[in-house]
């Protein structure tokens, strides 16, 4: 159906597929199939369905919640060969593509037309659009532009039995029927396989202004964020990097010239029409200084802009080099609760004697408290788990949630009951069953185990 070469069963070649970005887990799949088209994917699913074999869709495997891990006996259907951009349609500002296209490749293809694809996860050079759709991924610039779901106008799905179904579509009436596209975006590969994607593109902004505020503490930086929003400004990005992360970056090959004695750095970026940007930047600078910034740097050109962003962009990479393992955490709180929640996270990390580096989308209140550890040290691993759980509880208590962009996967199933009641979880289970009555699609993800009666 897909060619002998594209069905992987040898243990050696399966190794690549036994884990994803959630590095603590290894789940070797039974086999991996790599179809090249919607029709091939449909054929593969039909066959697996007839045999009653569970399926796990997989993009690039950069997911951080274990969504692409294959439970016992499951076959991975990967999108690595479904990597064609089918059409860029500048007059309608749309593009149609296969799910295995990498996020940056889409923007590269749109750029000659003065357009780009807005959602920009930090992993954008490595992750696929199919994965972005499945996770409803965000990114630094989602503060102004919104997350993936806003830009997906239509999808072609291969249902669990292989039937190809088209939902949405930019030219169709957006108010007719249920918003199935909205429902499938963020469903973490648990409903159906996405085999074709239609996205909306935006015109490239005319100009960009980037600032870097240096603060004594992460709480001050968080207060500056609230002040900037309170000014009525809408920056494209507001990103915080804390002291632990700054030090990791500066000690690495990615050294960005951030002062290592600073408590935190805040990247503020504005984009849009040139004329208004300097005024926006001036007002944001004043907010930073009023919140106690010791210094505010301003990029004068593209090279300087990259330098200011460097510490943010390389944060995960640099942190990953400090210890054998890095648990990239993810939670969202109301923006105004950031200072308090960050303080409590600091307290938790000290109590469990763990190194936690915070680097996050502050404008959206989307935290990434990243915990360094060594998975071979069982006792430490236990502390990591306990601290994680407490951090989640703190975020939920502050009116937040257990994941803002990385998804539930296998990692956070156990936390689902912190934010959802039994009825809400049953409602989600019911919706999943509508798409996948036999539970063959990415089983064991997202929903917690059923409670013993």
């Amino acid at each position, binding site marked *: 159906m897909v060619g002998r070469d594209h069905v992987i069963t040898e243990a050696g070649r399966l190794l690549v597929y036994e884990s994803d970005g959630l590095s603590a887990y290894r789940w070797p799949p039974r086999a991996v199939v790599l179809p090249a088209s919607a029709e091939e994917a449909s054929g593969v699913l039909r066959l697996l369905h007839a045999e009653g074999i569970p399926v796990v869709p997989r993009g690039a495997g950069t997911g951080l919640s274990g969504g692409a891990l294959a439970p016992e006996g499951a076959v991975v259907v990967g999108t690595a060969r479904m990597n064609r951009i089918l059409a860029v349609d500048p007059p309608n500002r749309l593009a149609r593509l296969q799910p295995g296209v990498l996020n940056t490749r889409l923007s590269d293809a749109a750029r000659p037309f003065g357009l780009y694809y807005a959602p920009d996860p930090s992993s954008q050079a490595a992750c696929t659009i199919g994965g972005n759709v499945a996770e409803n991924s965000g990114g630094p610039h989602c503060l102004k532009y919104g*997350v993936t779901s806003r830009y997906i106008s239509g999808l072609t799905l291969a249902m669990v039995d292989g039937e190809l179904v088209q939902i949405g579509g930019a030219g169709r009436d957006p108010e007719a029927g249920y918003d199935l596209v909205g429902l499938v975006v*963020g469903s973490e590969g648990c409903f159906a396989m996405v085999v074709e994607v239609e996205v909306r593109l935006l015109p490239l902004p005319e100009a960009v202004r980037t600032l870097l505020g240096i603060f004594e503490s992460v709480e001050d930086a968080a207060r500056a964020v609230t002040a900037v929003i309170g000014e009525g400004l809408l920056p494209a990005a507001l990103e915080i990097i804390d002291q632990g992360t700054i030090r990791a970056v500066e000690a690495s090959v990615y050294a960005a010239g951030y002062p290592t004695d600073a408590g935190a750095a805040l990247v503020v970026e504005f984009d849009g029409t040139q004329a208004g940007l300097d005024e926006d930047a001036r007002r944001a600078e004043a907010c930073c200084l009023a919140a106690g910034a010791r210094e505010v740097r301003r990029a004068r050109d593209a090279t300087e802009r990259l330098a200011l962003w460097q510490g943010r962009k390389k944060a995960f990479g640099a942190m990953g080099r400090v210890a054998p393992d890095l648990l990239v955490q993810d939670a969202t709180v109301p923006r105004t609760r950031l200072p308090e929640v960050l303080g409590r996270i600091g307290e938790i990390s000290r109590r469990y004697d763990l190194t936690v580096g915070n680097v996050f989308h502050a404008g959206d209140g989307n935290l990434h408290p990243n915990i360094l550890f060594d998975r071979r040290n069982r006792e430490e691993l236990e502390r990591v788990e306990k601290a994680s759980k407490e951090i989640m509880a703190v975020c939920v208590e502050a009116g937040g949630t257990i994941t803002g962009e990385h998804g539930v996967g296998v990692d956070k199933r156990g936390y689902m009951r912190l934010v959802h009641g039994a*009825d809400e979880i049953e409602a989600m289970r019911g919706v999943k069953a509508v798409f996948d009555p036999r539970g063959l699609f990415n089983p064991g993800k997202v929903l917690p185990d059923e409670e013993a009666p």
Partner: protein
Amino acid sequence: MSRVAAALAGVAPGEALREGGPAVAGARPDATVTPTSVEQLAGVLKVASAQGFGVVPVGGGTDPGPVPPLEPFVVLSTRGLRGVETYEPADLTMSAWAGTTLGEVGDVTGAHAQWLPFDPPSMPTRTLGGLAATGVRSPLCASYGAPRDHILGLTLVTGDGRVLRLGGRVMKNVAGFDLVKLLVGSRGTLGVVVSVTVRLFPRPEREVALVMEADRAEDLVAPARAVSTAPVLPASAVLAAGFRTTAAGGAARAASLVVRVAGAPRTVAADAARLQAHVGGSFRTVEGVEAAALFEDLRDHAAAGEAVVRMASLPASVGDLLAAVAAVPGPVHVLADAMAGTVRMAAEGLSGEAWAELRGVAARLGGGCVLERGPLELLDVPGASPDDSRVEALTSELRARFDPSGVLWRGRSP
């Protein structure tokens, strides 16, 4: 007292229950219930599910749709549940009861220079619950996004009376399947929305309208297309026909293109200049109270009449849609959203042939054509519809999960 009203007397005592009530798309309710608590409202749905009568949720009553519900049914008004629950200006979020009108929301948020940037017809009298239930698109969605993008959470009472708290009050949330998206736009067929949390936006410091007029709408299609492919995104861009801009000091021409530009004063001036340069034609600039009045008039334009039709296609086909509505006999009012590629048309009377013709054009373009309001006979006019059988199956199964006894909006598909 009717059987239905008698059954409800136990759960919705006194003031909350009234026999009869205003018709919904021509159908007469047995009773109108206006619960003042979520428990009461859930009680009504439980009784309806047990006894098997229909329930039609109604908010502001501004957008009932053309299809009458099957009888017997009760109208379930959300207007007894109103007011702001929490408003945190610094977080740009608000939670309010579903019966709160968008006008009331605007009054509260306006005091903090914030707003909900939507502009559907009758905006001030629509309710927040109705906004969630219809997911209504409006011209400002071009730059701000649609209700689906900014409804962060909602509380729903399902057809069988379960109370579900979906989503949350944070900007980004992927904790589980996105049932909020399923609910937004489900038009009361899955449950009754009782409370909504929305993301707000800073109110732009300045807004101007760039206006271009012509005798025929078709003469404005090229500039409208130029606006929608310009390197700068306006707040909205609409093309109106049968619309008089005299209120804004203009000559009474038959068609106008109105581009709304919003932001900080300097940005607005620069954006307006860039749009002018890109489009080439000459715009007249309208500002201040005149601009505000113009936006309000346009918001409600082509929304009233015996028949109101909504057509959708791609932005590049907006000229084809305009040509199709121009061919409808008799005077029509038209509002085209140049950014979205949709057209709304209002007419005093629409013949079966004209309606079939419009649907034919939409089908050829691969788009949509929906009767928002109009004579029931039109719904019997056959028309081609694409094969969506699997989507229909998914739709009815989802509906059954939320409303197992099938009491909500009987007789209507979402």
